[in-house]
């Protein structure tokens, strides 16, 4: 941890994919950088609660930031994912007109895509579509081969760990409570250390507000009142990997003009599951992080899933989750506003608001845009020792070919020990996750890094094993186990204290 008296050049508030993409981009320079995040890990907000789709850019009005940065970010993904060893699958997408009434909308998307510079688009009749996705319905479809899928938290974690390796300080479980710009132009950031319930102070020349669903609250702390965020919840179901391979591509309906989202659809994940969702329901402002699942939406998602995949069994629905879009349009207006990425009236306070879809896709392009904004305020000093790659083997062991696995087991026997049997995650991978460089200590941190507990038994088998490992090898006491933030403790203590008679 850096010297507290030293002034940061840039502090980024919020460690979602956009915040850490900016951190990683700025870590190409030798300036002093910090990321501050109220959750106990990166990627715990919208970045772990979305479809994981890299969008082509057909859905956004030409000339908007969503269109420009979406298409640009999409084009940057291959190199980024290669550098960080994050699996990216360009499986393409079919946007399907089910009836003639959908056709004008479909043509509009095609025109929009052309104006936005989306590569490789093709209009298809049903038989051409069925060559890509057997059995798909619809009279016409728009094929966009640059659409793809990615693990959104996988990308966020990889970006953060790379930024950290290049010298960015991460302050997890640190919630910003006050922002003051002194007369010398330096910001004082007052933050509560949630783990130790203590106040901390940081100083920085530039602040980047990428606080997602809370970005308007952060702006208000700095004295900027315009720009309200509404939370719009999207619920999902996760389906068993049994169905892996059913979907060759993404299939979306043509969205209505004022829909807040892109409609309920099936999305294969890079891990081999299928997601059903997301819904789009504005939620009251009392708690923007209320990720509850609601009975009517769950019902409709199940119905939709069964309509699209008739051989679904009840046991295929292994989990549900929800994410909240940070929207700048009110429920009455609907639709989407463009991203806000701008300098503000307060010099050095840069704000990003309303980065909903395609935020994940746009994140590397947003980072470049923000870099240019930052360079108006401070000098970015170049460095020669930036390392773009994450060290070591970072994929999933069980996805490797047999011989490669044998070789790795030879060099580290713990690759032979399977802890999570559903997802086939080895002890070594779980150890790597536990020993993550950011120091994130929750069980969610292990889950999102190693994929353990994400399978069909949802941790019934491996959770006790991971617990045993953390206790025996890392000295955790029962009360040290946290599932995630917000006081989500796992256990209430020992059954018996040591030495107590049974």
């Amino acid at each position: 941890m850096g010297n507290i008296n030293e002034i940061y050049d840039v502090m980024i508030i919020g460690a979602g994919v956009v915040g850490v993409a900016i951190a990683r981009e700025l870590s190409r320079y030798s300036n002093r950088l910090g990321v501050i995040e109220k959750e106990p890990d990166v990627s715990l907000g919208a970045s772990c609660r979305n479809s994981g789709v890299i969008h082509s850019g057909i859905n956004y009005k030409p000339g908007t930031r969503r269109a420009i940065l979406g298409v640009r970010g999409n084009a940057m993904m291959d190199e980024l994912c290669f550098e960080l060893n994050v699996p990216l699958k360009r499986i393409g997408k079919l946007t399907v007109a089910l009836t003639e009434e959908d056709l004008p909308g479909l043509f509009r998307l095609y025109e929009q895509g052309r104006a936005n510079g989306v590569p490789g688009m093709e209009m298809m009749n049903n038989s051409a579509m069925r060559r890509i996705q057997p059995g798909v319905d619809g009279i016409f479809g728009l094929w966009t081969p640059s659409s793809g899928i990615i693990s959104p938290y996988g990308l966020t974690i990889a970006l953060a760990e790379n930024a950290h390796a290049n010298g960015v300080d991460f302050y997890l479980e640190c919630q910003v409570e006050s922002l003051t710009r002194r007369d010398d132009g330096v910001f004082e950031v007052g933050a509560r250390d949630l783990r130790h319930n203590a106040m901390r102070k940081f100083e920085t020349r530039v602040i980047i507000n990428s606080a997602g669903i809370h970005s308007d609250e952060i702006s208000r702390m700095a004295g900027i009142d315009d720009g309200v965020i509404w939370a719009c919840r999207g619920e999902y179901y996760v389906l068993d990997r049994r169905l892996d391979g059913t979907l060759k591509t993404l299939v979306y309906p043509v969205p209505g003009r004022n829909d807040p989202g892109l409609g309920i659809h099936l999305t294969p994940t890079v891990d081999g599951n299928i997601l059903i969702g997301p819904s789009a329901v504005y939620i009251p402002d009392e708690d923007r992080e209320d990720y509850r699942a609601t009975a009517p939406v769950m019902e409709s998602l199940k119905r939709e899933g069964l309509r699209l995949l008739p051989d679904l069994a009840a046991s295929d629905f292994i989990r549900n989750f929800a994410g909240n879009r940070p929207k700048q349009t009110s429920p009455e207006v609907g639709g989407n506003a463009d991203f806000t990425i701008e300098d503000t009236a307060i010099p050095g306070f840069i704000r990003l608001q309303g980065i909903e879809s395609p935020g994940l896709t746009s994140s590397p392009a947003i980072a470049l845009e923000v870099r240019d904004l930052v360079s108006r305020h401070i000098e970015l000093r170049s460095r020669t020792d930036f390392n773009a790659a994450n060290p070591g083997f970072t994929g999933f062991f069980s996805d490797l070919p047999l011989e490669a696995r044998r070789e790795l087991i030879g060099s580290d026997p713990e690759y032979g020990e399977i802890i999570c049997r559903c997802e086939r995650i080895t002890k070594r991978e779980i150890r790597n996750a536990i020993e993550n460089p950011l120091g994130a200590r929750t069980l969610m941190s292990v889950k999102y890094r190693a994929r353990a507990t994400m399978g069909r038994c949802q941790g019934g088998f491996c959770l006790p094993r991971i617990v045993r490992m953390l206790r025996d090898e890392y000295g955790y006491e029962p009360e040290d186990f946290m599932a995630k933030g917000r006081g989500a403790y796992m256990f209430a203590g020992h059954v018996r204290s040591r030495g107590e008679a049974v």
Partner: protein
Amino acid sequence: MRSISRRSVAVIGGGPAGLDAAIAAYEAGALDVVLIERDIRLGGILNQCIHDGFGLHRFKEALSGPEYASRCIDRLTDLGVSVMLETIVLDLSPDRRMLLSRRGALFEMECDSVVLAMGCRERARGALSIPGHRPSGVYTAGAAQNLVNMENIMPGRNIVILGSGDIGLIMARRMTLEGAHVEAVFEIMPYSSGLPRNIQQCLVDYEIPLYLSTTVVGITGMGRLEGVTVASVDENRIPVRGTERFVPCDTLLLSVGLIPENELARSAGVLLDPVTGGPKVDDRCMTSVPGIFSCGNALHVHDLVDWVSEEASRAGAASAKYASGEPGASGRAISVVPGSGIRYVLPDRIGEHASVCGDVSLAFRVASPSRGSVVGIYSGGVRIKEESHSRLHPAEMVWIRLGCDDIARAYETPDEPLEVRIV
């Protein structure tokens, strides 16, 4: 080139089913039997079942889970059956070639026959579709049992249990004994899915209320669980509006069903029964893939370990015979089907060899509770056997034994399935 080890019989899973299957295979003359277990010790789920009541039928004693297991383990050790611990089977092919993994090694094995005895897993929250938040403090009952009994960890202090499966009932008592407060057990069905003796000994004796036709319709808590909303359900298991009430608690234990573990069976192309979740098997416990057998909770979820052991012994002996080259699936078989009032029946078919070489036990579960019922077995219009039962309950497995004569009579009309039904 790596050498591939060869075995006559490999038994996958070292719980009660695997133990007795391996013992029986060895005793039936299989030369090199190997028992493969992924945990650090044999015994499977019995190790965490420290309550008693195991072995009442088999040993005429009430043993604890570990005691029951140790009897099997001692026998296995005396016989000298080889065991691979901390070893997991990753893949099984239809020609019985396996890929295994353990610390420091990834290796293959070929076998003349394989017994699948991987047990079952618990249904998790996702399969229930309970609306609400996703706080910590929601555990399956078996995972909680493991934490309490094996790891000395208390999952929570104020407990609500959803589902009255046996593990849930056992955990209601267990948590109470360890000083937790168990608020209630809620069961969506109009009857418990647990054994009557467990209702008495685990709930009634501790004054823990059991609410039937009631379920959890909401989960509250952004960090840790703060409470659940429960509601009565109608005869279609739909929550009744206006009956919701909030029950504060920090822990929700789920005991809502078990699912036979059959990923390996799937990878080997074994046909599964959608009702049991386990393979379709003949009277020797052989699956649709010759040489691959299944028993215990991987085949269908049992109520008592005694029956698991009995079934596993049959599967183990049959696997040894198959490995020694005795004729397999060829020849005729009569199919066995569940009729009215019967949820499922096993085996799925009876081979003709059974009409000359011995008894066959049909295991079945009824669809709903009844008293004074008669269970009949019919072949076409012909009654093969009838038994009256003073009490039938979905929680309890029922066995009917068919003698050689019964089977021979059924074979008079070999194209007619044997139907088990409540008369």
